[in-house]
């Protein structure tokens, strides 16, 4: 051993990111950044954004807490409703054929206090997927047509049919309602920074079978 004075290691990219960008007043920001980092580098999401929302605290009288949501586009589809999957199978469509869409991620850390009220408030802050998808699907539809002229128009027709069906399914909630990805980072005593992701959907949405 040469040196007896321990030197601090270089801060990791994540530590640097958190210490450079975090607003110290908000306890959720470090968590948000950590998960943002994880999505970007471990799961290769793109077009990541952070949104700020107001979430009521447990006591309805006290002022609401501000909270962050992350949105981004995953490299491949994260969730397909079982009925949607069946429909796609029938049409001969694969996950890759369908346009990737923006997903919302709720960053949380172990030990945070949550309640149904807060969960509901997060969901209420999300736009109605039916409306959102309508605007999205018109462009997506065009997109599909573009590709259709290049390759095979049969598939394009099927995709168009699929998007139409999907718009309807969103309206009727057949293929599930609003959904977010709940991200929880393992923090605090013994926490190793692992991030786990769970799909949370509004309502009773039947489980996937695979």
């Amino acid at each position: 051993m040469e040196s007896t004075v321990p030197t601090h290691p270089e801060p990791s990219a994540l530590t640097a990111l958190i210490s450079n960008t975090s607003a110290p007043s908000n306890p959720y920001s470090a968590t948000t950044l950590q998960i943002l980092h994880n999505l970007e580098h471990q799961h290769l999401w793109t077009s990541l954004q952070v949104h700020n929302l107001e979430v009521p605290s447990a006591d309805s009288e006290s002022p609401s807490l501000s909270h962050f949501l992350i949105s981004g586009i995953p490299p491949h589809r994260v969730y397909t409703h079982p009925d949607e999957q069946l429909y796609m199978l029938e049409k001969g469509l694969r996950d890759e054929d369908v346009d990737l869409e923006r997903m919302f991620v709720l960053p949380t850390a172990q030990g945070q206090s949550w309640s149904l009220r807060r969960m509901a408030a997060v969901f209420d802050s999300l736009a109605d997927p039916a409306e959102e998808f309508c605007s999205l699907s018109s462009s997506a539809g065009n997109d599909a047509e573009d590709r259709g002229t290049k390759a095979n128009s049969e598939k394009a027709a099927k995709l168009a049919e699929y998007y139409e069906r999907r718009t309807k399914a969103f309206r009727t909630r057949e293929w599930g309602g609003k959904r977010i990805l709940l991200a929880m980072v393992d923090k605090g005593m013994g926490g190793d920074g692992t991030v786990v992701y769970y799909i949370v959907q509004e309502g009773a949405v039947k489980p996937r079978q695979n």
Partner: protein
Amino acid sequence: MNLEPSLPIPISYIAGNYFVFSIDAVTYLRREHHICGVLMGTLPQCPQQNVFLGLPLELMPEEARLLVEKGVACIVDEIKAQKHGMKALMAEDRKKYLHELESQGLQAMRLQHSRKEQQKEMALKKIEDKKLAKAKKMAEKQATAETQVSAEETQADPMIDLFADSQPSSSTPAQLASRPASIASSSANVTMGVTPATAHPPLPLKPADDQLLPLPEVPSSYPLFSHLHAEGYFLSPGLRFGCQYVAYPGDPLRFHSHFVVVSYEWDEEMDLMDLISGGRLGTGVKKGFLVGGAEKKHKDIGEQKDTVRTFSLEWAGM
């Protein structure tokens, strides 16, 4: 089976629990109201196993309350009803009831007797067949004949016969054949004792007003229970699966469950770790983890009917 029992169905309240004893009521509640309860009794025809259980049906307080609120059932103080009912029994009713039981017992005996005769014939025939088969086997040196016969033997009668011999162990072909026929035929005129499942008759079907009890007390998960029930789910107690309720999309007789369910109050603290472990638990058995509870609205919105919010969790696979 598609009998419509007269409503309201009496639910027996005994020492803090809710029971249904009438098979017609059990079938009806399951078919028409998606209320399954838990069968907790021993099946007399098959008493040494726990896979299939029989009457009574134990209801969760949530189930009992839901039925009362729907006007389908009423809660009866069964201990009081029995005590008073038996005390008030008129000599005439008693005689009539005993007479009824006697004729039931007699009919049961006759049915059993004729069935035994049949079995005996069949058994004898089988022995003959077996002998023949054996001879054939000896002659042809084929190993197949015997196995066929014994296979037939084991599935003697696939239908449940209501009046089959309730005493097992007395029907190997050899025993049957050697039993003197005289005993069986003489006993055909003796009456069987009968233990009825329900107390009606001799007690009246409709409970007296002073035997009725108020709405069952239910845990705070009741709004979620009734919400999921209204959505068409069949709900069972869930502790065995690590949750409060297990929700089935159809009759649990025929369908796998979809959700493990845990209820929260609107402002009750939710440990995120519980959500994660619930999600993990559900995904591991191809079920969703469903949390929910009654929404508390601001008072100024007015006396709106309580709405229940639910959320389903599944592992995202990433």
